[in-house]
């Protein structure tokens, strides 16, 4: 029912204002296919970086040297250039006239790979097999067990074609050669009618529609136009209109790779074969008769096809504004290195609304008026270099200068979706204000991104034909929307997942069997936890931290955190809470007990588990003993000096010797005393009940035996527990040892003593990261066995990785993470196994969005505390690892790319080194999530 298809909806109306805007403001004829090019947003600026023309351009611009410049900016732009070329397939006798030779060649520049295989006589379906060894040209690489990849090479420098030749004996059992062509540079595949190319060597093969060369009488081209049906394909390559042979698959995540297709085909063939086997045995005689009729008469052929590759080319548009001292007029100087005729379609505006107007003459040479709404000026070639430019002289009262570039009838170059804009008014007050576009464009993009996101999706997802040519530029926005969707989904997932508890199975029966979906243990939580340290060293100062944090509860949760660690809640001699006195008095500098309860409730409501910071090692006394030593306790736990360890002379305890190291600032509690343990267990139980804590962060666990911790944890049944076992790493002559096994062994020993009921902060990893990042010694990130060198390499599920806490960083800075390297640290711990913990100060800083993205990548790919790490590189300047075969990460300035092959990787996240000036080339990490197999 075709009328149904055109029912108007509100969606249509959504689109109208946009278009109206275009026509009013831009004074452009609205034409389909008008915009192939787009401003290249910051995220992909590195594409432009590839050309060294930037410096050249700046250097050569006469505007850059003058001192009176009021404004200068360089806009990187990306446009699509079509490169046409030819591709041929030739089948002929080789020189000795015995063997035959298949030659495939391509004249387009690129790194061409022939991905090929053969089928044998009697094969059914379109299964590929590995060709016999003798057939494989040098340089071939086997791909699994069904294909070969052979690079195309230029035989000599002067050759136009990259070629590959495959020699074969025509009386072999080979029925056909199958292939596709792949451009390694772009990752694009050339296929034939959506299938592989097939060169039949015997003519009984059934035509699946993808045979190259006619069945009989090769050389007679016998191609029918084949409607292309691969809808989802967005081509980087265009197919010439009449010769519609090629379909090219751009690397789209989740589109099966060729390898996958092959595997599937193989699989289905196995099924086919088993079904067909009965029929075969019955028809044996007929079969053999048939096979006699197979025609082995090969004839050579040669076919040539045109192809177009779209290459994205980075160019720059430079604008400078200065004031003419003589006339007082404003001079806008525009230059670009875009080759060919470039027309500037321009105007000025009076205010922020940026409505186009035509300024008063004079205009530069070669200027025409376009429909009384805009001016068009052809840029004049410069004497030196391949650049063109123009000077525009304007009255100084204009607010701004607007332009777009027109390359040819159908190609417009814009600033993102909008006009290029150069401010004219007010800039004189800030002389020498450079590099504005970077910050402003960022702002514009994020604003319009949130405002228009819903509208955009309409255009994007629907793929309206009227917008088809804008696809290229839509892609960027589309990707960011998809990322947004993924983040939302990850958030929803983490909440839904955390609440899967029991699943009644039976419908009728009264006994309902239940099974827990996630195995939770206090050492690991679900295994998918991400911890937030919810305070810093200053948090006590406002006196209302609980209430302040409550405001942030949903925000923290929405970033993907599942567990939050709150500051020590008890009455304390020191305001930060680590010198507890009356354990049952929970009014502290962070707030009252009621506020704490309220906070915990809010945190639970947003789906987070809450850790209480419990100080079990020591406790400050209320009273002095007869010697004037403070070791008698008050409050509900009114212990006497038997609760204090005996081996610290300061406190004259009458208990046993300490089972661990001593903390000298307060009486250390003797956990070997039955009554002490009983009271502490009761207290922990009370905290669970009364406050609603889900688990513990255990302070200074070096001070007492891990076996007692096990006892406490078994009694209080926490959802998650982590202990602070912090001592020094090994150094030799002031330099950190590569091998930190003894350090991590001590932590692992403690975890072991708790029987794995608690995890421990991975101090080892933090220390090694310090050296690796600060000194560019990334080799440290692999131990002798090629595993992570910290606790996370030995007992990942119990390692709580972190880079900073209230002691190491914050305002104390006892052992601060190297400045500027924080994101590299987080890129490491948030992609690796272990349970990562993020410090409050980092969450609420400029790192926030990147941390959120990393968490999102972690959640999206289901990385958990036991994920497997494969370290791919640990060299001086680069560390790279692949986690669970899903996420590839890289830190450090050195080079690493995820492996190509059957896996296809898409960039998930990329960040810069923030230390010093941000240089586009200085990416700190590159993460990719594989979407194929």
């Amino acid at each position, binding site marked *: 029912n075709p009328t149904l298809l055109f029912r108007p909806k509100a969606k249509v109306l959504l689109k109208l204002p946009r278009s109206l805007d275009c026509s009013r403001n831009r004074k452009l004829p609205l034409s389909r296919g008008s915009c192939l090019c787009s401003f290249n947003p910051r995220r992909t600026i590195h594409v432009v970086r590839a050309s060294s023309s930037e410096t050249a351009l700046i250097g050569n611009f006469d505007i850059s040297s003058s001192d009176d410049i009021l404004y200068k900016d360089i806009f990187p732009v990306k446009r699509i250039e079509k490169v046409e070329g030819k591709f041929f397939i030739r089948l002929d006798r080789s020189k000795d006239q015995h063997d035959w030779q298949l030659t495939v060649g391509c004249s387009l520049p690129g790194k061409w790979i022939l991905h090929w295989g053969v089928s044998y006589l009697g094969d059914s379906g379109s299964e590929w097999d590995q060709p016999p060894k003798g057939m494989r040209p040098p340089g071939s690489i086997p791909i699994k067990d069904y294909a070969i990849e052979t690079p195309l090479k230029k035989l000599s420098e002067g050759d136009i074609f990259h070629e590959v030749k495959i020699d074969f004996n025509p009386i072999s059992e080979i029925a056909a050669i199958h292939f596709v062509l792949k451009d390694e540079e772009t990752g694009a595949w050339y296929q034939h009618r959506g299938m592989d190319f097939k060169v039949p060597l015997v003519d009984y093969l059934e035509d699946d529609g993808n045979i190259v060369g006619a069945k009989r009488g090769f050389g007679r081209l016998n191609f029918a136009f084949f409607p292309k049906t691969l809808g989802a394909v967005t081509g980087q390559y265009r197919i010439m209109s009449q010769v519609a042979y090629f379909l090219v698959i751009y690397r789209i995540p989740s589109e099966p790779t060729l390898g996958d297709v092959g595997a599937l085909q193989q699989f289905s063939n196995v099924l086919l074969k088993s079904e067909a086997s009965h029929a075969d045995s019955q028809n044996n005689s007929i079969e053999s008769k048939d096979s006699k009729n197979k025609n082995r008469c090969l004839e050579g052929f040669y076919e040539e096809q045109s192809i177009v590759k779209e290459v994205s080319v980075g160019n720059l548009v430079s604008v400078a504004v200065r004031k003419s001292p003589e006339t007082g007029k404003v001079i806008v100087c525009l230059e670009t290195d875009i080759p060919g005729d470039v027309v500037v379609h321009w105007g000025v505006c009076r205010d922020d609304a940026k409505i186009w107007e035509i300024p008063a003459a004079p205009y530069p040479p070669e200027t025409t008026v376009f429909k009384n709404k805009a001016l068009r000026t052809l840029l004049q070639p410069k004497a030196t270099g391949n650049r063109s430019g123009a000077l525009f002289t304007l009255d100084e009262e204009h607010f701004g200068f607007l332009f777009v570039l027109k390359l040819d009838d159908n190609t417009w170059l814009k600033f993102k979706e909008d006009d290029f804009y150069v401010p004219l008014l007010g800039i004189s007050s800030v002389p020498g204000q450079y590099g504005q576009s970077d910050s402003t464009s960022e702002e514009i993009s994020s604003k319009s991104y949130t405002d228009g996101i819903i509208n955009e999706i309409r255009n994007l*997802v629907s793929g309206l034909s009227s917008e088809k040519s804008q696809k290229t530029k839509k892609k960027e926005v589309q990707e960011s929307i998809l990322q947004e969707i993924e983040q939302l989904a990850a958030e929803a997932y983490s909440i839904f997942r955390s609440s899967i508890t029991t699943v009644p199975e039976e419908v009728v029966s009264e006994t309902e069997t239940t099974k827990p979906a996630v195995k939770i243990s206090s050492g690991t939580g679900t295994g998918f936890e991400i911890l937030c340290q919810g305070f810093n060293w200053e948090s006590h100062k406002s006196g209302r931290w609980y209430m302040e944090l409550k405001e942030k509860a949903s925000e923290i949760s929405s970033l993907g955190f599942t567990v939050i660690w709150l500051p020590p809640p008890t009455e304390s001699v020191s305001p930060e809470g680590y010198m507890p006195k009356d354990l049952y008095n929970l009014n502290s500098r962070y707030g009252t007990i009621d506020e704490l309860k309220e906070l915990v409730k809010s945190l639970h409501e947003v789906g987070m588990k809450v850790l209480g910071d419990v100080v079990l090692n020591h406790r400050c006394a209320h009273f002095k003993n007869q010697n004037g030593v403070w070791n008698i306790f008050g409050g509900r736990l009114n212990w006497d000096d038997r609760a204090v360890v005996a081996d610290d002379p300061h406190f004259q305890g009458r208990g046993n010797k300490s089972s661990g190291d001593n903390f000298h600032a307060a009486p250390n509690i003797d956990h070997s005393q039955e009554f002490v343990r009983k009271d502490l267990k009761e207290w922990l139980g009370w905290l669970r009940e009364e406050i609603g804590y889900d688990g513990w962060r255990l302070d200074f666990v070096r001070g007492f035996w891990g076996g007692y911790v096990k006892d406490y944890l078994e009694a209080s049944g926490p959802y998650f527990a982590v202990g602070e076992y912090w001592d020094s790493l090994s150094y030799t002559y002031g330099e950190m040892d590569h091998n930190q096994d003894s350090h991590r062994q001590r932590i692992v020993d403690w975890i072991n003593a708790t029987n794995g009921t608690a995890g421990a902060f991975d101090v080892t990893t933090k220390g090694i990261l310090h050296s690796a990042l600060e000194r560019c010694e990334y080799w440290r990130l692999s131990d002798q066995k090629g595993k992570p060198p910290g606790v996370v390499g030995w007992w990942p599920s119990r390692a709580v990785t972190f880079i900073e806490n209230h002691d190491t960083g914050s305002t104390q800075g006892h052992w601060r993470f190297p400045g500027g390297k924080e994101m590299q640290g987080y890129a490491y711990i948030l992609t690796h196994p272990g349970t990562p913990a993020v410090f409050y100060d980092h969450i609420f800083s400029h790192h926030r969005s990147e941390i959120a993205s990393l968490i999102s990548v972690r959640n999206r790919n289901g990385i958990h505390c036991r994920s497997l790490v494969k370290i791919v590189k640990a060299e001086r300047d680069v560390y790279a690892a692949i986690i669970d075969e899903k996420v590839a990460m890289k830190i450090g300035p050195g080079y690493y790319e995820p492996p190509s092959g059957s896996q296809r990787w898409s960039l998930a996240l990329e960040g810069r080194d923030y230390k010093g000036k941000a240089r586009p080339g200085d990416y700190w990490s590159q993460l990719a999530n594989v979407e194929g197999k």
Partner: protein
Amino acid sequence: QILVFLFQLDRLRLFVGLPLDAVSDRNSVNHARAIGAGLKALKLLGVEGVELPVWWGVVENEMGKYDWSGYLAVAEMVQKAGLKLHVSLCFHASSQPRIPLPKWVTKIGESQSSIFFADRSGQHYQQCLSLAVDDLAVLDGKTPVQVYQGFCESFKSTFSPFMGSTITGISMGLGPDGELRYPSHHKPAKSGTITGVGEFQCYDTNMLNLLKQYAEANGNPLWGLGGPHDAPTYDQAPNSNSFFKDHGGSWESPYGDFFLSWYSSELVSHGNRLLSLASSIFGDTEVNVYGKVPLMHSWYKTRAHPSELTAGFYNTASRNGYEAVAEMFARNSCKIILPGMDLSDEHQPHDALSSPESLLAQIRTTCNKHRVEVAGQNLASGAPGGLEQIKKNMLGENPIDLFTYQRMGAHFFSPEHFPSFTEFVRSLSQPELHPDDLPSDEAEATESVQTSSDPNIHLQTA
């Protein structure tokens, strides 16, 4: 002069089901934040709306007293997200997650078990009321139909601000899992396992009374004493007893025809009672009323179609049992929701002699004949090849215009599932054509001019 044409195809409407327990029995929204994020994600994906199960057991905790607060909150969230809402009124209970019938109903059932269906062994199915009590005043002096009516009317007045704008569709609960059927299979068919034939559910006192009356009226009083004695039990195959045998089975005997006619017509009458109620209540709104018809696809390849027979559809190799059903829907101007559009024959166990695709085709053809519109649903997310099959059903020769994908939750957003769903949605909304395949600009311009008389194409001159 350059002309620009803006037009948009009316896209297929895709809904996603909200979690069954989106509103808890204390009438608060469960996982509100997750649902909020989920709604945003769906909106960005271009999904049209969501489906919200509204449970009798959550709303009507006391007879005649309705607490809609949780559902109102969800409706507001949906409205805010700019999505549409399809409401499923559920007069049944759910076991997973556990959402029981209203407590007062369960209490009545404790002393009066005949309000529930019973099978041959006397086992009661307590997840919904027996259709035989529809018009009996078993609920504290009221009939179930009257109680349902009160529920629907209260719903309508409470949600009137949303009707027709946010709420675009309402499914009337018709039986077990909301479907028009007998609870012949206590366990829903799991994909990959072979389901038995199920059992007839005509053994509660009231069903037996109806059967007796019917038998006497037809001059065969002896046939009215109970159901077929030679039917297999729940998990058995058709041939394990003589009733469903392909050849010479009792189903083909005059007795079989007598019993099956009665059994199936009771189901259709029940459907008619509830749908006429719904259409009389909601008929004056702009909301479409739907009812769900199950896809009892097991044993479809046998002649007797036992699974359909025990479920109440007298559909065999020689008789189209869906005629009466479709006709009943047509009479009430209601649309049919068909689940199982994710099932494909090739993924069914071979021995089950099942054919979801053929059954779907049969029901859809019958519905077309009666001009009853069909909306789709999947049985379970994650069925092998499910998304592909759904796509085939949605975009095939005979496309459906509304599909509800089940269902939001942990699995839905999991890394194993969500990316494929995203891809699925995008592939639905993106036309199958590659830009290169579209006519060239010139050709398109001509084409557009030719169709520009169509008032639905927006024409703009620059």
